[in-house]
């Protein structure tokens, strides 16, 4: 055991000796779940605002108001139809693209890019985060490098990616992957550093080491953190998708944006933005459901 960790262990036993004495019995167990992301703490107060149908209704109010204001612009004419086409025009643009079969192609290819980039980036983020979070050696060797890479604004990679991979799926997926990697990496790395040391020590005392300790104690302990990292990563993935498609593509919602801009089709620009909002929110909601389940299961 290194000098430093020995000091820490001692400081901790001293603290628990003095601090734990008066603890009521239930506090002792709740210590372990204290820091995890538990469901909304106000959930027990059973106010009307916490009920799901009520929340859904309330959440719709602002979008409906915006829609109303948007529609009224067509009558009042603050903005010209070129600047702000009425909702019906956007709907018609969508119907027209759907009829030609193009709309689904844009949606599917964009979603596919996001999902592939997000999947690979998250797995890499998890692996590298676990490695650097658990191994002092890897931490000392690699953390400065990873930190420097993270400091590079991700769009700075674009020229290099195009040079290396040409303008194809690979370069776009790689950019999305870079975007998804860092949130997962950072949350997993930090969370592993803060796993309850008493629990890890208990695992060690019962003969767990290496991979077994990782899978039995450390990874389950950081599951809530992994999920918050994944949700951040998914949002980043959509962000980078649009960046990648704006720069070089012939299909996808980002392409629809830049192509419509070049052709002065504001209705299609609005269509693309609304689709990005809806699909982004839908994928995040799905991940949120998985998170809820995981947090219940692992804390």
């Amino acid at each position, binding site marked *: 055991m290194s000098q430093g960790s020995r000091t820490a262990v001692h400081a901790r036993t001293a603290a628990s000796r003095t601090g734990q004495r008066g603890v009521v019995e239930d506090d002792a167990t709740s*210590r372990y779940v204290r820091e995890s992301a538990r469901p909304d703490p106000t959930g027990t107060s059973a106010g009307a605002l916490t009920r799901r149908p009520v929340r859904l209704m309330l959440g719709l109010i602002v979008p409906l108001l915006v829609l109303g204001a948007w529609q009224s612009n067509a009558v009042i004419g603050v903005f010209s139809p070129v600047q702000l086409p009425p909702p019906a025009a956007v709907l018609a643009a969508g119907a027209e693209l759907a009829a030609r079969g193009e709309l689904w192609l844009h949606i599917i290819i964009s979603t596919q890019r996001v999902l592939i980039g997000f999947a690979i980036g998250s797995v890499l983020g998890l692996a590298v985060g676990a490695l650097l979070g658990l191994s002092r050696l890897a931490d000392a060797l690699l953390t400065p490098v990873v930190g420097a890479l993270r400091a590079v604004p991700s769009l700075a990679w674009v020229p290099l990616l195009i040079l290396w991979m040409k303008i194809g799926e690979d370069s776009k997926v790689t950019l999305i992957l870079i975007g998804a990697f860092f949130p997962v990496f950072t949350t997993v790395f930090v969370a592993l550093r803060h796993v309850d040391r008493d629990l890890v020590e208990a695992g060690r005392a019962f003969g767990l080491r290496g991979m077994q300790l990782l899978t039995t104690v450390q990874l389950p302990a950081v599951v809530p953190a992994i999920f918050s990292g994944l949700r951040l990563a998914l949002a980043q993935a959509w962000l980078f998708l649009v960046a990648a498609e704006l720069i070089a593509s012939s299909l996808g919602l980002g392409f629809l944006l830049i192509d419509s801009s070049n052709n002065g089709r504001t209705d299609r620009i609005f269509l693309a933005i609304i689709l990005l909002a809806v699909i982004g929110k839908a994928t995040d909601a799905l991940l949120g459901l998985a998170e809820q389940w995981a947090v219940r299961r692992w804390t």
Partner: protein
Amino acid sequence: MTALLTPGSTHPHHDHRAFGIRFSRLGQSFGAAEKRRAVLRDVSLEVRPGEILAILGASGCGKSTLLRTAAGLDTPDTGEVLIDGDPVRGIDERCAVAFQEPRLLPWHTLRANVAMGLPRSSSASAGKARVLELLELVGLTAFAKHRPREVSGGMAQRTSLARALARNPGVLLLDEPFGALDALTRIRMQDLLLDVHRVKPTTVLLVTHDVDEALLLADRVLVLGPGEDEHGSTVAELLPVPGTRPRGRTSADLAALRSSLLSMLGVDGH
């Protein structure tokens, strides 16, 4: 629960083990460079197989440190710990620890937490049977599928004890396991420990800050105190506790020993 506690009912394939322990000129310091502070100094003593030894001492005197070196959780600076004649190097599978806090995995059921203590060599079916047996021993059969946060602190601590027993330890190391419990739960846990020890008379090292608990449970009491030059604790006293268990909680025979132990710990006039 009581049926299980009669000695004849123990299963033959996990015969209990009880090893002797020898601490030999053990020394331990913590902290770096100029802040380095000796905690234990020249601790030598022998614990007999099957004995219950209570370790008393003021806060911060190194009681837990002594236990941790026996478990292999800490490596001593000098000297060594021998269990059954073999030195302890790293985590020792002949020992099992129960900490002051239950330290259960919150995402596992009580049953899975107890199973964590099973020796790696045990087969799945034998392990499962053993876990159920231990849950019954500590009176938690009905709560096998509960999570730690769904049960009381006393139940969590019983689970922690069952997890330690699942190792079939030759040495059971208890680090103030009842310290954080309320008075009634503590009495029940003390009785449970004595029941367990009657069925499986393993060697027990019990760190405690409670003199009465030491006198109730132990064969001998070790008092750690400052050495001659105040640098680190060493063996101040090693006293046998008269009478056989179970002892009364208010036994008059122990009054003299109780007051002399208290005065050793710096509490006079009781």
